[in-house]
């Protein structure tokens, strides 16, 4: 009995989470432009989407930005995690503690402060500013994810490599990196996701004519909602799902498998 209740509860939960998404995805395949029922299957919105230059350009910006962010944030973050985990730094605890607030401060506030700072610093707005902002936002996540992996084994392996004549560079590429690879891969996917999903900072930092997908979607919705948005959202959801499955393969979230 309790078992059945449990299943019912779980099912209700999944419906609660997935129903809106499912409705939205379904409407992407509905012929009517103003969500009229009955449902008539059609790919017309995907077809229209393929002609929408603005959305495509925004999409390309988003993907390139996310890829650049992934590379930059993962490299810098991994190096920082190594330094925190393996060297006795002065004010080590303070540095580590300072990693957490950016994750707790609302993105809206961070974005505002970045906009103001970039204005004064002469960095201005544009894709380069967005890249800086996205790297700053994803670094704490990368450092924490890679750091968790580094802390799971001691400095023994690296010390052992050194006694065997490996230079620090050889040690990193032949011992440390292969061992922390799952953590680095998971961190890279996090970084990609943070950038690709980023709306607030991108919105603040996009000059006229240069937008990312989330910003463009928001703009389109304000202009007038068309199921094209459902179509592109469907594509994004599928890509995100695949990414998430990859992450959970590399990085076990607490549980076993």
């Amino acid at each position, binding site marked *: 009995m309790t078992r059945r209740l449990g299943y019912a509860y779980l099912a209700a939960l999944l419906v609660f989470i997935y129903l809106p998404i499912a409705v939205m995805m379904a409407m992407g395949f509905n012929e009517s432009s103003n969500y009229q029922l009955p449902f008539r299957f059609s790919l017309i919105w995907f077809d229209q989407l393929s002609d929408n230059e603005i959305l495509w350009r925004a999409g390309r910006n988003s993907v390139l930005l996310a890829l650049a962010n992934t590379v930059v944030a993962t490299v810098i973050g991994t190096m920082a995690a190594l330094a925190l985990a393996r060297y006795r730094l002065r004010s080590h605890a303070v540095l580590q503690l300072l990693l957490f607030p950016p994750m707790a401060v609302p993105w809206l506030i961070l974005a505002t402060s970045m906009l103001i700072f970039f204005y004064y610093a002469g960095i201005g707005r544009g894709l380069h500013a967005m890249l800086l902002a996205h790297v700053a936002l994803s670094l704490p996540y990368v450092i924490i994810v890679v750091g968790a992996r580094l802390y799971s084994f001691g400095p*023994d392996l690296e*010390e*052992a490599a*050194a*006694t*065997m*004549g*490996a230079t620090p560079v050889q040690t990193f590429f032949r011992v440390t990196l292969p*061992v922390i690879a799952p953590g680095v891969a998971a961190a890279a996917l996090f970084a990609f996701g943070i950038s690709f999903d980023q709306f607030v900072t991108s919105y603040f930092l996009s000059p006229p004519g240069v937008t990312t997908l989330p910003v463009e979607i928001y703009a389109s919705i304000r202009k007038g909602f068309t199921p094209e948005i459902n179509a592109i959202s469907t594509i994004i959801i599928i890509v995100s799902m695949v990414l998430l499955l990859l992450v959970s393969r590399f990085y076990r979230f607490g549980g076993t498998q």
Partner: protein
Amino acid sequence: MSRVEIRDVSKRYGSVVALNQVSLSLADGEFFGLLGPSGSGKTTLLRSIAGFVEPEAGQILIDGADVSRISTHRRDLGMVFQHYALFPHMSVFDNVAFPLSVRHSGKAEIKKRVEEILELVQLGGYGQRRPRQLSGGQQQRVALARALVSNPRVLLLDEPLGALDKNLRQQMQVELRQIQREVGITTVFVTHDQEEALTLSDRIAIFREGVVVQAGKPGEVYERPRTAFAAAFLGATNFIPGRVADRRGSAGTVVLEDGQTIHTLDPLPSEGMAVTVTVRPEKFSLHVGGRPTPDEDEAVNCLAAEIVQPIYMGASITYRVKAGEIELTLFHQNRESRIEPPGSRVWLSWAPKHSILLEAPGGDLL
């Protein structure tokens, strides 16, 4: 094959002194055991030789050249860690090949050498396995093979047998010593297990609070401890306090509080001084019934005592006895299959050469 010399090496962590002007000298091919309780500095010294710890003062010389400011990877070492530190993402072969491949040796040469050394540690044919597929003892051998494969100058062992169970440990002790002799490599070995240190080492050094309290051959340090700490750390012992009664002749006399006297061959300070004598529990002979007749040529020590508690241990019996106010422990070979009950009056005898006079009487008890 190398000489290692430690000269006045000091290291502090904050206000804690980990090493205080430690000097040791290892001969070529010697197996040297560093022994002491945790925090005594033995591991810090090993890690200084490895280059993981930079000493504040002093020098570490390998074959006459100071390496104390050289990075670890240039020191030409082999090291076995307590938990082996095998690379989990590599096969056994790749683990053992690592020291050669970072030195850019040829493929054919690597293959030949790795197979040779795996043969030496009796792991021929295990090359393609992963470390986690091996038992603890096998992992230990892989670690040893990996440490030796490049023919380093010095082998460092950090409690290498600590993670093994007792039987395997004893078996590995024998193998480790055999392989070390075969290769002839100068070896520094850290352990807190005194029996292991005695079994394996050519010489040992006992550490306490960053200082070497005594160094020498295991037999010397065990039979002739200079301080109460060294005596108590290397196996069980008894401490007998007394005063110098007579220092003339070859065997001096110490009188105990209850008036009984014991003899020692060690040079005694002036008459009337308080001293502490130590006697190992296995040096005592137990006599039931009358007082034993002394040997003709040797003044035999003889104390009257009363059994407090017998502890049956199979091959031997440990007796806790009381001689006057002094509590003593003695090991008795279980030849007669007979246990003396508590309260029995007995005599203990031993040769004067086993009464060891300690430095700094009373002040240095653990």
